[in-house]
């Protein structure tokens, strides 16, 4: 892929990632977010976070299966979108649900397990977003940077668990996210196990008599 095409595809992701936010703002200003707009805003921004986390996680398996190495170029943008919607999700909770009260947000977070899990997901994404620039990759060095960015797995897993835990009874959607994530992580595990499978030592082989 040409550099120019890559840049266009990045723009495509950038614009499309903003569409849900634009529609949220539009619907909010037209008072058509439904009977419980606060809840809808919190839920939808959370959903967008999960979608972008899953998309980020899908890049490497897709790249390896298709051989399209240029896919890697979109991972940062997808990951940053996950962080962006995650921040919006928290801001909606902090403002609309907790009325900007730090103390009530903290007590609620400590008391509710699913909020602790959600906070872990968001906090873990913070260092990843900070170190997402080219300069930071250089500064950390590829090896350390890659090790740090394995935290993305923690964010994705914690995010899905957070979604699962807050569901009242219908866990079909959380299950879909969990299944997709399991496939994406399972792929990595299989690749890892295959790579590290030790060669059979010759001594164990039966000797011809």
């Amino acid at each position, binding site marked *: 892929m040409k550099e120019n095409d890559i840049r*266009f595809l990045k*723009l*495509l992701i950038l*614009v*499309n990632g903003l*569409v*849900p936010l634009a*529609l949220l703002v539009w*619907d909010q200003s037209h008072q*058509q977010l*439904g*009977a*419980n707009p*606060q*809840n*809808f805003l919190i839920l*939808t921004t959370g959903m967008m976070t999960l979608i972008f986390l899953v998309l980020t996680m899908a890049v490497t398996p897709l790249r390896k299966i298709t051989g399209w190495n240029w896919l890697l170029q979109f991972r940062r943008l997808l990951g940053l979108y996950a962080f962006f919607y995650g921040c919006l999700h928290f801001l909606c909770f902090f403002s609309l*649900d907790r*009325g900007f009260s730090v103390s009530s947000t903290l007590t*609620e977070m400590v*008391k*509710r*397990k*699913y909020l602790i899990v959600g906070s872990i997901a968001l906090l873990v994404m913070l260092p990843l977003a900070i170190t997402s620039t080219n300069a930071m990759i250089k500064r950390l060095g590829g090896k350390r940077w890659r090790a740090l960015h394995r935290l993305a797995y923690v964010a994705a897993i914690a995010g899905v668990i957070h979604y699962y*835990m*807050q569901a*009242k*009874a*219908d866990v*079909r959607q959380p299950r879909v996210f969990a299944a997709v994530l399991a496939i994406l992580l399972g792929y990595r595990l299989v690749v890892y196990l295959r790579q590290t499978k030790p060669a059979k030592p010759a001594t164990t082989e039966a000797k011809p008599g």
Partner: protein
Amino acid sequence: MKEPDKISDSEVTPPAVYFNRRNFIRTGILAASAAATGMAYRKLNPVGKGAVKTAKLAGVIAAPAATNAATGFRVDEPATSFDAITHYNNFYEFSTDKEGVASAAQGFDTTGWQVSVEGLVNRPKVFKLDDLLKISPPEERIYRMRCVEGWSMVIPWAGFSLSKLLDVVEPTSEAKYVAFETLLDPKRMPGQRSEVLNWPYVEGLRLDEAMHPLTLLASGIYGRALPPQDGAPIRLVTPWKYGFKGIKSIVKIKLVADQPRTSWSEYAPNEYGFYANVNPQVDHPRWSQATEQRIGAAGRRPTLMFNGYEEQVGHLYAGLDLRKNF
């Protein structure tokens, strides 16, 4: 082998035109993809609701403004809009999506509806809906409704006290509880095809709770017959309890001696109890019950003990440990 046709220089697109065309196409792709994303979003999050219109109920006795506050029959708070009451429903028989119940329940047919009142009573009877509604004229009751999920509404119901029906069938002295059951018909209630809950939905009250004047057998809201999404044609309303106690589309009422099983407490006994009285001091294991989101209002407000009906119903629970009996 034939040589490929030569392209003359004049046929080659000049770079300026080529790049312009490429930009043009790219702009098109950009716009088309954004539109497609937008449409996918819209499909998942539709706006614009179908208008809800049900028959006007005849002879509703409006709650007079001067209704004695001590009765609890008329809460002095702005009522939630008809639109919100009919488009934000927990009714898993149709959909687990609160905003999707209205459309999923559209066209729910209640013709020929019957309610069997049976069990430990002297005069068991299968009531035709019309006969049941004739027991007493519908009264307007403006109640708070507090959902266990942490949101609330103020709803102008139409109906009469359940005690009036129980008086007709005469519970025997062995009767201690009342068990309720919703229609079981996966064809008319598509949500019952998935096993989110153990169908049919069942609920129950202690007999003294059932006989309390606040306990309402409702057939309408805002002076109109209940729309399907709100529990047509007849439902229970117990304003001091969490909303899920208000069983909808009732087909059976049975007087029994022992505490009946109830759907949500069966589903998650540690999260939902038999009593389910609104109590800001006893949290749901996963979220606080201290505050609530009033639909149509900004911010959260403190939740009141027994949903503000402590004066009327508090005595029913004297000596009961409300932490254990949540």
